[in-house]
């Protein structure tokens, strides 16, 4: 029985969302990893500052992508969702722990006053950036190797502790660090930090090479552990794999010759990630779990699939104008950081001039803003505004 066109369409949407999460979420987690590796409080201050500035407005967006993945999976492919959630209870719980710790650490970090407290919450944030992608990688590895039983009777430890799954976990961590470093090069360039550009350019290259090596290692395991996916990757999905590899090498080349073109570098890095995610999806076809659960057997009734399709369409229809509005307002410079209360106090105090410029964030480039606006809830920024040093004067 071949899968219905509706099932294929929803699976395609699912993989678009997974690619988006891998890219945006990956960059976000990667920022935390570089934060972790930035060294002592003194030496690591400049890169940490840049990471913090770049991530703050966007870190929540990832929840939207992740929640969409979960919802799509449980509505469109309920048996697969139930089996994954049961068999991989442990790595999924650990990745969830990472997500919560990350949120708490990030929120606290900006309100913490003392250095010790800042270090503690910062470490919490950074460590969770490491464990979340790792365990998500083991989950993907477990699914791709077909180790998840369709009707698991409980935890299946062996599924996510196989060499392939563990390697995939490390691969995810390296890929996050790589994507993030590439983006951070551009962030540094935009802010005119020459030294940080070199700093992250070097790290992007190192992480890129490491990612390539880990990908090669994982690939070498596949013929034995995941023959179906291996056949797919070397067959129908080969063009996507080739594109991913080419894009990855192109990024390294661009960094080598210091051609820091904002759009070019960003898009090429995005292609490198998205192509390999789609390649994985295509290689699994027509299975949800190769080769025990097929797309046809594991998908919901047609009406549910159509409903998901409609919801995705509605999301685009409703959310797109929202973005357009945001973009329009942003372009016309109508959105600025809320002024600090001290500005207001100055305004109210007779005879004192309002500072010429409110404590606004530097107007970011259009591309970054687009990402930033997706995420929209700029809460942490707001807290920081309230506690900014200028306020305490």
């Amino acid at each position, binding site marked *: 029985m071949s899968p219905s066109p509706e099932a294929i369409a929803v699976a395609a949407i699912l993989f678009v969302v997974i690619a988006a999460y891998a890219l945006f979420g990956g960059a976000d987690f990667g920022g935390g990893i570089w934060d972790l590796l930035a060294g002592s409080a003194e030496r690591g201050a400049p890169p940490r500052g840049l990471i913090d500035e770049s991530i703050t407005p966007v870190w929540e967006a990832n929840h939207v992508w992740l929640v969409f993945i979960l919802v799509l999976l449980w509505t469109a492919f309920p048996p697969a969702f139930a089996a994954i959630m049961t068999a991989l209870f*442990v790595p999924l719980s650990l990745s969830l722990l990472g997500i919560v710790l990350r949120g708490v650490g990030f929120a606290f970090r900006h309100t913490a006053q003392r250095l010790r407290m800042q270090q503690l919450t910062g470490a919490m944030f950074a460590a969770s950036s490491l464990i979340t992608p790792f365990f998500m990688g083991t989950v993907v590895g477990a699914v791709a190797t077909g180790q998840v039983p369709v009707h698991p009777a409980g935890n299946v430890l062996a599924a996510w502790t196989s060499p392939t799954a563990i390697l995939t976990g490390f691969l995810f961590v390296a890929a996050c660090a790589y994507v993030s470093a590439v983006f951070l090069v551009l962030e540094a360039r935009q802010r005119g930090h020459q030294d940080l550009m070199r700093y992250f350019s070097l790290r992007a290259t190192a992480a890129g090479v490491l990612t390539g090596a880990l990908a090669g290692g994982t690939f070498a395991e596949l013929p034995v552990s995941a023959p179906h996916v291996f056949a797919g990757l070397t067959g129908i999905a080969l063009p996507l794999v080739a594109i991913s590899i080419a894009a990855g090498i192109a990024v390294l080349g661009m960094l080598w010759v210091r051609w820091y073109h904002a759009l070019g570098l960003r898009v090429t890095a995005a292609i490198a990630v998205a192509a390999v995610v789609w390649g994985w999806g295509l290689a699994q076809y027509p299975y949800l779990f190769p080769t025990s659960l097929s797309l046809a057997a594991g998908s919901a009734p047609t009406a549910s699939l159509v409903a998901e399709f409609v919801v995705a369409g509605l999301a685009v229809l409703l959310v797109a104008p929202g973005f357009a509005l945001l973009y329009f307002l942003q372009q016309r410079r109508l959105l600025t950081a809320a002024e600090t209360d001290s500005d207001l*106090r100055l305004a109210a105090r007779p005879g004192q001039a309002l500072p010429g410029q409110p404590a606004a964030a530097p107007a970011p480039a259009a591309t970054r803003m687009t990402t930033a606006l997706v995420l929209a809830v700029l809460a942490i920024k707001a807290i920081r505004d309230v506690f900014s040093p200028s306020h305490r004067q």
Partner: protein
Amino acid sequence: MGAVAHVLAVDPVPARSQMGSSLGFHIILACFGIAFAAVTMTAEWIGIRRGDAAALLLARRWSKVMAVLVAVGAVSGTVLSYEMGLLWPGLMGRFGAAIGFPFSVEGIFFFLEAIFVGVYLYGWRRLPAWAHWWSGMPIVVAGVLGAMSVVAANSWMNSPAGYTLRHGKITRVDPVSVFFNASTPYETAHMVLAAYMVTGFLVAGVYAVGLLRGRRDRYHRLGFAVPFTLAGIAAPLQVMMGDIIARFIAHNQPVKFAAMEYVPRTTRDVPEWVGGILISGHVYFGASIPSFDSILVGFSPHTRVIGWDSVPPAQRPPLVTLIHLSFNLMLGLGFFLFALAAWQGWWWWFHRRLLVTAWFLVPSALGGVAAVAAMEAGWVVTEVGRQPWIVYRVLLVSDAVTPASGVPVTLGVILALYAILTVVSIGVPMIMSRRLRQGAPAEEDAEQVPYGPSPAGAGASPAVPRASSGGPEAP
């Protein structure tokens, strides 16, 4: 919370406790997601309309708090999405195709809400006054519709509809019937009103404390009056709604109703129990009003009320005393809040002044806590009352729970983390307000917002005329 008491009674206990505590935590933040924008926008409306600087300042500060709470809510909401699968794979595997649809719809509204919170928060300085006000409107609408979507998923568990089962597998789904099941309108209205009450009474409570400490300036009066008014409007509606819902439950889920009201046998002239503990079929320490339950259900003492003897013992909810007392607590607190609102309303009607005696302010300061307790009690009633079913009369909780070991561990971790998150979401706004007060308490009133009535501009005129509506008072 019911979760803890539940530990001793039911089989999939750790999973239920974890779900209960996660939901019990998230629901408070969700209330702010639903209702806080309306509170903030009311203050802003007053500020723009009457040129009131204090109102604008309140609105701007509230919008910052709103952003913090939405952020924490995003995290706790993600936890819940995970837990749907981690804890209840038996539910999602079998019925995900049906129950998943309302959750997908909710995703859209969450997205919209996030976008416009961004516009609202960052548009204060440069957007024209009314344009900024309108940018908050989608948050209010998306809040209500998003609440409806999530509540629809819970309603579906109480009134499953819109699917066809064949050999235990879903073969057809009608997403519209899933979304608009019999319970959806009742639960949605109840929850949205509850969200307005929780948010309104909690925010008003903060300023009631300020007023009690003698900060009786316009800033604090408005900070109290605006949220209290919204919550006060919701309170009588909630009492009415509650009465309607009780009759609906008596009809739709009679066994749940029987547990709520201590109705062991199906009879007429059923008494209404107030308080009381049920021990081996006897009610101790309770007061009963003869035939009143029958009157409430059917407007006549001779109305037949279905008791829990109508189903075999295995299908009756556990912890009947907990259900009954939670129900009573919700009712009692609901009437208490209604009385507070009526008192203030009466005073306003005849005196056109805000009632600020300590006799009124002390209970008002506790109003928010009461509203939260009432809402949590209500969720205990509906969730524990549905037991042992996860999907009413279709799927047992014990068939839905995960076979994976390790839930007790995750339960412990979740409880610890939520303790921390609670500290964050209460502590951060508290630190914020303390910092703000230390800044310049005397000028709290006089601070200007960009498009306020400010004649100050860049501080050009030495004598800044205060907003006409209220001068600053020393604290």
